[in-house]
C-alpha cells in the first residue's frame, strides 16, 4: 500500500473541532492503520493513511467507517463524512477543507453537542393493509418534534414502513426524547418500532466539496 518515498492517501472519517495538536484514536482504521487528527484552522479532520482507490460498499467496510465515527463522537461533536472519501495526499485534503470551511463552520454550529436519533415504525407482515398509518405517523411526528431541534423525514424504502425519520436532539435531552419514544411505542404496541442511535448527524450535515457526484463531504 505504502511505497517508500511516496506519500500515502488520507481516508477521512469525520471532522471535529481543532484539538490544538495531533490526537490519536488508536489503530482502528482501514487495514489496522492509526486513526488520528490533522489540523486546519479550528477544525481537525479525523483520518488514517490509506490506499487511494474506490472503496466498494460492503457491510464490513461501512461498519468500520461507522465504528470509527462512533468512537470519535464519544468525546467530540462530529461532522460526519461520507463513506469512501480518500484524498491523494494531505495537501489536497487541506485544500478541500479550505474550500468547504464556511459550510463546515455553519454545520458545526448546528450540530455541536447534538446527536442524531432514528425512529422507524414498521408494519407487521399480517397488518400490511392497516389503515391507521397516517394517524400513527402524525402522532409520532407531533410528539417527537417537540423534543428535537430538527427532524428529517427519510425515504420509505419499504411498503411496510409507516415512518422513517431522523431527529437532531440535544445531548442532554436524549433521555427525555427516549421516554417519549417509549410512550409512543406502548401506544402502538401492535407495530414494530426501531429506535436507534445516538449517531453522528448524518442526515443534518450535507456539505459536498470537490466531489464529482453526491458523496463528497457530507
Amino acid at each position, binding site marked *: 500500500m505504502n511505497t517508500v518515498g511516496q506519500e500515502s492517501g488520507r481516508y477521512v472519517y469525520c471532522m471535529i473541532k481543532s484539538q490544538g495538536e495531533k490526537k490519536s484514536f488508536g489503530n482502528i482504521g482501514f487495514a489496522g492503520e492509526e486513526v488520528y487528527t490533522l489540523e486546519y484552522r479550528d477544525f481537525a479532520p479525523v483520518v488514517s493513511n490509506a490506499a487511494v482507490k474506490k472503496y466498494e460498499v*460492503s*457491510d464490513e467496510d461501512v461498519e468500520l467507517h461507522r465504528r470509527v465515527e462512533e468512537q470519535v463522537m464519544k468525546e467530540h461533536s462530529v461532522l460526519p463524512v461520507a463513506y469512501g472519501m480518500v484524498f491523494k495526499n494531505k495537501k489536497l485534503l487541506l485544500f478541500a477543507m479550505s474550500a468547504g470551511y464556511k459550510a463546515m463552520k455553519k454545520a458545526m454550529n448546528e450540530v455541536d453537542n447534538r446527536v442524531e436519533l432514528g425512529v*422507524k415504525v*414498521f408494519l407487521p407482515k399480517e397488518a400490511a393493509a392497516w389503515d391507521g398509518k397516517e394517524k400513527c405517523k402524525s402522532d409520532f411526528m407531533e410528539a417527537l418534534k417537540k423534543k428535537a431541534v430538527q427532524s428529517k423525514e427519510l425515504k420509505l*424504502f*419499504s411498503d411496510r*414502513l409507516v415512518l422513517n425519520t431522523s431527529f437532531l436532539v440535544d445531548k442532554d435531552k436524549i433521555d427525555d426524547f427516549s421516554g417519549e419514544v417509549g410512550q409512543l411505542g406502548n401506544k402502538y404496541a401492535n407495530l*414494530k418500532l*426501531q429506535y436507534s442511535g445516538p449517531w453522528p448527524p448524518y442526515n443534518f450535515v450535507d456539505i459536498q466539496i470537490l466531489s464529482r457526484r453526491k458523496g463528497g463531504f457530507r
Partner: protein
Amino acid sequence: MFIIDDILLRQMGITIPGLDLIWTLEQIRGFAHREMYNPEKIKNRIKENRLLFELGEMTIDEYEKNNAELLQELKLAELGAEMNLGVRTDILGAR
C-alpha cells in the same frame, strides 16, 4: 445516414401493424429492464432486507444470502447504467 424507421413513420401519423407490435414489445422490455435494473429500487430492497433482519424477521443466514444477491444485482444495474444498456443507439448515424 438517414433511415426511415418506425419513429419517423409514427411522427408522420403512419402506423404499420408489424412495427407497432415491435414498438409495444420494446416498451414492455424497457419497462421490465428499468424495474429489474433500477439501482434505486435495488438499494431500497437492500435496506428493507437489513431492516427485516434487525427486526428479527429473518435469520443471519437468510440476511447474508439475500444481501449478497442484492449487492450483485446492484453492481450489474450500476454497470448497466454506466454502459447505457437499454438505450437504443443509432450505430449507423453520423452522431
